[in-house]
């Protein structure tokens, strides 16, 4: 049981995190309403449902949604609950359907969500006198929108627009999701459950470069990935802009082409990037020298981009993964992990990049394996009595008075704020946003709030 959410938020804002935020069921109940009930939540990528009738079943915690491309090609997000008695009208995870028929009384809906068939309509309802099918639709979330093919929904009728919500983070999102005109091809997800609080993964991907040299030492030792050594990792920039933040690696000197080729992209893809990315986006890689790696958007959507060696001949190939930390309870999370690759990439590259993904991340990934062991262990011990009194130290980069130890990166070509060196700037920013949501505030539209105070 927690005493007062404003006390918790005050602690979080100064980088001292009450350990039970990673285990307390009451805090989780409040998160369901105030964070997941209001934030924009990722559901699916358009490429997962390429043809009319294609659908995938997705959740926002306990709410089940059918993400379907209707017969006219429009993507719909339908609440998976029959208007009559509330049965789920779709119980497969993926498929193709023109209609969804409820197994209980056979009410049938078109893939637009409109009620199309009601058995014994005349006998049971007096036909149109009792029930006007044409005006009845499966519910939809109040807000649905997409960015670069990524479909989001918010359960909040008063949510800011998706554009406003993503804000300046879109600058960084494009690195992962817009490498050519065609955009991404997304496959998956792998799904598995970990006995860890959802925030731990979200924070880790947002900015924890400090764990990389130690937690992932084994992958360097076996020659899977050359970058995570501490000496290299601390040179990367940690950036945060509006609703999310991420990590980068600093690359050896060279032009844009040379730097992108260094991580393993073929020439045809580099041309695509140059067409899609603004001069400022390109400058982040070429002039500033920072290549995006992991990132998180509040609340629970993360990305990762690494470039491991995938065969005996030393072939280095990058991969992109999109992942969601879907909470099951305060102490359990279902991980959804997708593989993403640019649609216009050469076939050999798609295959090699997929291999790179499976070796590093996902249910069997050699990086991911060690992360989860840490997060499970934290959550287990955060359930204890003494954990309620422990405030976890998340103040790296600040002095004891709370002043910044280092100056932000000068001439940062992107939006937001960036630092090099080790520091928990992004984790604090992410949890500051979380705190505002938990208080019932709207940090996206608030004029007097910033997730990145100096």
């Amino acid at each position, binding site marked *: 049981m927690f005493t007062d959410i404003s006390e918790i938020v005050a602690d979080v804002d100064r980088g001292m995190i009450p350990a039970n935020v990673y285990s307390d069921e009451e805090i989780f109940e409040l998160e369901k309403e105030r964070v997941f009930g209001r934030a924009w939540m990722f559901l699916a990528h358009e490429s997962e449902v390429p043809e009319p009738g294609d659908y995938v079943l997705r959740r926002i915690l306990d709410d089940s949604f059918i993400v379907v491309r209707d017969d006219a090609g429009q993507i719909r997000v339908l609440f998976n609950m029959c208007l009559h008695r509330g049965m789920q009208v779709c119980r497969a995870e*993926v498929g193709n359907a023109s209609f969804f028929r409820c197994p209980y009384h056979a009410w049938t809906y078109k893939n637009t969500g409109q009620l199309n068939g009601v058995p014994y309509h005349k006998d049971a309802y007096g036909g149109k006198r009792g029930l006007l099918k044409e005006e009845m639709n499966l519910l939809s979330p109040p807000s649905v929108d997409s960015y670069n093919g990524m479909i989001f929904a918010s359960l909040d009728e008063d949510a800011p627009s998706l554009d406003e919500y993503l804000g300046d983070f879109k600058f960084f999102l494009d690195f992962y999701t817009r490498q050519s005109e065609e955009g991404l091809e997304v496959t998956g*997800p*792998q*799904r*598995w459950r970990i006995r860890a609080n959802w925030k731990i993964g979200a924070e880790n991907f947002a900015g924890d470069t400090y764990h990389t040299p130690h937690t992932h*030492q*084994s992958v360097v030792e076996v020659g*899977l990935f050359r970058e995570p050594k501490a000496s290299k990792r601390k040179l990367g920039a940690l950036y945060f802009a509006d609703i999310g933040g991420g990590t980068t690696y600093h690359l050896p000197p060279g032009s844009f082409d040379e730097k992108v080729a260094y991580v393993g992209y073929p020439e045809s893809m580099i041309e695509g990037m140059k067409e899609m990315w603004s001069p400022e986006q390109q400058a982040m890689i070429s002039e500033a020298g920072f290549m995006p790696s992991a990132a998180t958007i509040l609340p629970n959507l993360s990305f990762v981009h690494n470039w491991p060696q995938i065969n005996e001949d030393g072939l280095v190939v990058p991969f992109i993964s999109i992942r969601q930390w879907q909470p099951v309870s305060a102490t359990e999370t279902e991980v959804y992990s997708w593989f993403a690759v640019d649609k216009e990439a050469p076939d050999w590259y798609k295959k090699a990049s997929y*291999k790179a993904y499976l070796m590093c991340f996902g249910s069997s990934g050699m990086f991911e394996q060690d992360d*989860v062991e840490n997060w499970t262990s934290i959550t287990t011990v955060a359930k204890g009595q003494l954990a309620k009194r422990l405030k976890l130290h998340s103040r790296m980069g600040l002095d004891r008075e709370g002043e910044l130890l280092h100056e932000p990166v000068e001439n940062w070509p992107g939006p937001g704020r960036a630092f090099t060196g080790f520091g928990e700037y992004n984790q604090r920013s992410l949890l500051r946003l979380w705190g505002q949501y938990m208080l019932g505030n709207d940090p996206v539209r608030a004029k007097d709030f910033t997730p990145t105070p100096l």
Partner: protein
Amino acid sequence: MEMIPYTNDTHQEVHQFLVVEAELLDSRRYQDWLNLFTEDIVYRMPVRVTKAHTLEGSVLYGMDHFDEDLYSLKKRVQRFETEHAWTEDPPSRTRHFVTNVRVYPGEGDGEFRVKSYVLLFRSRGDTRDPDFLSAERTDVLRRSDSGFKIANREILVDESVLKTQNLAVFL
């Protein structure tokens, strides 16, 4: 093709091979386990999904939990041999229960197609509930001078959402 009878020596040899393999995995003799594979091994575990009407094709197109060649299997084993593979240090206690073994003639000379059920019990630490993974494996075994080698393995896992923290284990 017709199943090779249980009373046939080949069935007995194959069954013994799978039981010995399970012992190697459960005692973490991974280098010995790697020796059971051919150079051209394809080791796959597709992602399973719930589809309407049928179990046919109930795998997710284009996505696997494992899609390994000998290089990546070796890397996984090599990683466990470092002192920094925390996920299995301390190690899980595992049991691979292998049953329902069915042996069929294979396509090539000295090749057999082998189906088996496997139930993996995995216990970690002293406070967590154990995990289970249930699957059917379809193997292609090839006879060699040093006994059978696994040339292909497809693992059809029964859960669409795995209830284990990672696949730092093999099936």
